[in-house]
């Protein structure tokens, strides 16, 4: 029953996205340049060495596997396959799934921060650009001219297909990295979600990718620092100390826009809120907060929305209570 409950929490709470950052413990015997953890279609982890001859180390490394049942489903998953590079040198093995999984902490914290919002990603998808469209059109004309010589036509068309595919695969829709910090005045920790295209810096505590079928590549050093890369949109999660924002004082960062909601009321724009001062108590003319962030349950508690000069958003519940 506890397994089911935990799995449901993991499924429901990690921002409607499956976490793709779980940790395994591995043993490596040098010499080796790097360790590769192959997770099949889910992706791969490359841990850079060097691992010296005679050296034997136990490492805790992230792997991008999917675990539909969350942390409690890990034991049912096959351990990733480990290879050392170069293969003729040292060796290693995956010992076990780590007992401590940071994603579990993220899932527990997010339980108290409903509704969970994620940093918005661009609504557009990669589209064909002019160069690859020209390649296709030109190849069509050339193929038509060469219809008496189908073998040559096929050869040229294959080359054009590879070129067009390569050009298209490098397309990425523009996405400005956006971060959202969610906190509750009664909790010590806040949750930060950050969206980015192509890669995010590690370490983080949770990682989602859109589309969920996208493969992930984690490149880390022995300490777990590095980057996560994917052709999709990445969303990274981490916990951090609750921002020092109370009605009496902003001891966090200057906010260029602020909205306050008292109990069951509407969002009230209060304008900029500099550091060291109480929250402005006079309403100003301003725009409404973004809809994706403003949906906070009306439960009689106060709430705060703000935006920093860097474009980072913050949402607090229990604000001013």
């Amino acid at each position: 029953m506890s397994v089911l409950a935990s799995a449901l929490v993991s499924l429901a709470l990690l921002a409607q996205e499956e976490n793709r950052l779980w940790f395994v413990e591995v043993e490596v015997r040098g010499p080796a340049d790097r360790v590769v953890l192959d997770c099949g279609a889910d992706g791969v982890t490359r841990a850079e060495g060097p691992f010296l001859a005679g050296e034997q180390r136990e490492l805790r490394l992230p792997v991008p596997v999917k675990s539909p049942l969350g942390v409690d489903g890990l034991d049912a998953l096959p351990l990733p396959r480990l290879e050392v590079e170069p293969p003729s040198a040292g060796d290693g093995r995956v010992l076990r799934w780590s007992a401590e999984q940071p994603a579990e902490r993220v899932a527990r914290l997010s339980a108290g921060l409903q509704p969970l919002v994620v940093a918005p990603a661009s609504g557009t998808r990669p589209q064909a650009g002019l160069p690859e469209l020209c390649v296709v059109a030109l190849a069509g004309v050339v193929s038509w001219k060469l219809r008496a010589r189908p073998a040559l036509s096929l050869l040229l068309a294959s080359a054009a297909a590879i070129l067009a595919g390569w050009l298209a695969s490098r397309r990425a829709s523009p996405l400005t990295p956006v971060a959202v910090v969610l906190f509750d005045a009664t909790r010590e920790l806040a949750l930060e979600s950050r969206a980015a295209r192509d890669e995010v810096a590690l370490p983080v505590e949770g990682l989602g990718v859109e589309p969920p079928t996208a493969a992930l590549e984690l490149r880390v050093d022995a300490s777990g620092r590095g980057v996560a890369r994917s052709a999709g949109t990445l969303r990274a999660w981490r916990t951090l100390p609750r921002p020092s924002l109370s009605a009496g004082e902003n001891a966090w960062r200057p906010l260029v826009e602020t909205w306050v909601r008292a109990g069951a009321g509407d969002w009230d724009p209060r304008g900029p809120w500099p550091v060291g001062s109480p929250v402005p108590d006079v309403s100003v003319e301003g725009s409404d907060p973004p809809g994706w962030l403003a949906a906070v349950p009306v439960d009689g508690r106060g709430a705060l929305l703000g935006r920093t000069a860097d474009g980072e958003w913050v949402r607090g519940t229990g604000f001013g209570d």
Partner: protein
Amino acid sequence: MSARRFAVALLASLAVLLALPALRSLREVSLTGAVLLAQLAIASAPRSAGDDAWRASLWSAGALLPAIGLAVGLDVARGVSVSRTLPFALAGWLVLVAWSFAASAVGSSTRARNVFAGLWLAALPGSAVLWAALAWAPRTSAEDHAPGAVLAGVNALVWLQRSTRAGGLAETEASAGAAPLLLALLVALAVWLVRRRHAARSLP
């Protein structure tokens, strides 16, 4: 493949590549599957006269390759893995070659053309419509497999349509294209045999 049909297939491919990512409701559609679907629907249709079958089919399927390559590249840019997309695209292209060959193999034989038209109707649009109709029919038992599952397994249009759904490319196995490919080859063989027999009878 005639100039008109080739132009239509190429323009349809480009229209799919340009329009689908721009439409909010269809932006998750797999472009590789959608392009192959459009090309197969156009290239396989019965035609009035055929050229040298192999040369014609090889040329027509080859000439449509760049559009498929572009679709594969865009799907990869959207996050679908290359190891999923490429085998699927290759399997789809082979099905396209086989059906294109079958359509070209009729030559000038009226009987072969009629046989191909009947087999094409049954194997592609007819069975696809039947599969869709059965999928919508009320179910009277709790059997695991939906009625028409066999049709879905051998129909190239249904196989490609399944891959076009959001996330469908990641779930569709390239090996599932073996049955549609085999069916296309059987149709091509049947048409070729009818054409040969007809040609032998026509000799003085």
